[in-house]
């Protein structure tokens, strides 16, 4: 379970996240929605500390992943990142073959002693995202030759390969055509009984289709949060109502 307490993030003079308090439930899909520039991506990047590489960033508060504070801890940041997978907006296959892409994380983390085990594992991960049959015989060709939708699923397979507990997705379908978008969306739904998925999304309709929980953010603040049915059907705050009715986006 990921718990965010009194999280404030400044980048330079900009106060990006303001007093964020959140709880991401396990084994479900939580969608973070809100107009662009409201801090969704920053929140996501704080959860796996990728934000560290941003210039002039200052983080206050706590982010507890399974009870361990990752902001202020001396714990192994790489181990943390292994446990929290990331699927980014544009698919970004590493400059290597399809097989090596999936095997990359396993090798980095020395997950297998025997090559055979690794091969079996890579095939399993590719099957999990429905790629295995599509790329028959092309396992060792460059990943960049896949279609963009296939690339995104490959990235998901790559994340799954290192056995994460959480998956972060940053507008993971926004660069895809409608059909691949649907495939990836369905994949996330099928994965939710094994992983806790936190998703930033730009389309309300997508959140409506797949979210179990919804977080609505505006100008760096959490406005409303709760089960999807409640937030969508019976929003408590005026701002949320306005947003849902399309008054701004």
């Amino acid at each position, binding site marked *: 379970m990921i718990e965010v307490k009194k999280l404030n993030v400044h980048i330079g003079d900009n106060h990006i996240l303001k007093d964020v308090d959140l709880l991401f439930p396990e084994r479900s899909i939580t969608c973070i929605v809100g107009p662009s520039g409201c801090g969704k991506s920053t929140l996501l990047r704080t959860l796996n500390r990728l934000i560290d590489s941003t210039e002039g960033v200052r983080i206050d508060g706590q982010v507890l992943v399974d009870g361990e504070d990752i902001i202020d801890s001396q714990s192994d940041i790489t181990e943390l*990142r*292994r446990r929290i997978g990331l699927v980014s907006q544009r698919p*970004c296959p590493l*400059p290597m073959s399809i097989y090596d892409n999936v095997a990359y*994380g396993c090798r980095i983390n020395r997950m297998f002693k025997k090559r055979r085990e690794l091969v079996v594992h890579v095939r399993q991960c590719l099957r999990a995202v429905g790629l295995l049959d599509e790329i028959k015989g092309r396992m060792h060709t460059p990943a960049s030759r896949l279609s963009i939708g296939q690339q995104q699923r490959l990235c998901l397979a790559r994340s799954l390969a290192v056995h994460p507990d959480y998956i972060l997705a940053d507008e993971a379908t926004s660069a895809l055509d409608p059909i691949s978008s649907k495939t990836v969306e369905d994949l996330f739904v099928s994965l939710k009984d094994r992983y806790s998925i936190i998703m930033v999304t730009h389309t309300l309709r997508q959140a409506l289709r797949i979210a179990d929980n919804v977080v609505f953010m505006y100008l760096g603040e959490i406005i409303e949060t709760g089960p999807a049915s409640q937030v969508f059907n019976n929003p408590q705050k005026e701002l949320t109502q306005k947003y849902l009715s399309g008054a701004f986006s």
Partner: protein
Amino acid sequence: MNVRTLKDRTAKGLMLTMTVVAILTVVAIAVGLYLKSRPVLDSQSLSSLLFGSQWRPLKGQFGFLPFLMGTVWVTLLAIAFALPISLFTAIYITEYARPMVKRFVFPVLDILAALPSVVYGVWGILVVVPWISNHVAPHYVDFSTGYTVLAAGIVLGIMVLPLLVSLFIEVFSSVPAELREASLSLGATRWQTALRVVLRRSLSGILASSVLAVSRAMGETIAVLMVCGCVVGLPHGLLDACYPIPALIANNYGEMLSIPLYESALMFAALILFVVVLIFNLLSRIVLYRIEKQNE
């Protein structure tokens, strides 16, 4: 047609001519040097010029092998010395450094790049040569003046450092940030990311940059001339003196008009240098252009 349009057309024509003339300079250099080296090319075969090791200008024997080998030794040593240092420095700057560090490092590299060749030569004579003569050579040979392949390689290595570092920084910066993040989010350390993702994707750029640096090192004259020893002969080790091609040309210009064919031989040396540098430059620039384009 009004005056303004006419002006525009005239200016265009003029500028086009200037651009074409500038491009043609490349051809002009090649042709000029070739015409000048005709006499020596006619006097003996190309292979005996390139692979002969007899250098007796008074007898009309011009074997360039000692000078070619001198250039090869010195250049390779310089690159071998500069490559690891510049790779690590560039990785640090692109993958690790905070802006504060960059603000400090770039001016230092600027200074290194700006210092004239002759200043490096003075430094080589005052620092590197005595160091080799007093501290390095005694372990291996009875006596060395210090004016050696090693001295030239070290001086030249430092001279190509800033070029290599700035080229590498450009190449590494063209690797998209998303790739690094993908690797980091799988649990890789920065070093693993640098090694397996950034370096791996930059291989062609690293190669092209190194070739460019090699061609720069090959043509460097004064600094090398000051510390290489200038002894005609095939170098057999790092502690032998050597005599690279640019040093040969620069050192003998005074007497070249008095000996027949000598001038022609020296121009042939310049032609060799030009052709090799031209080919290396063309290849590496085309690769680097392609990387830059990918980046856009």
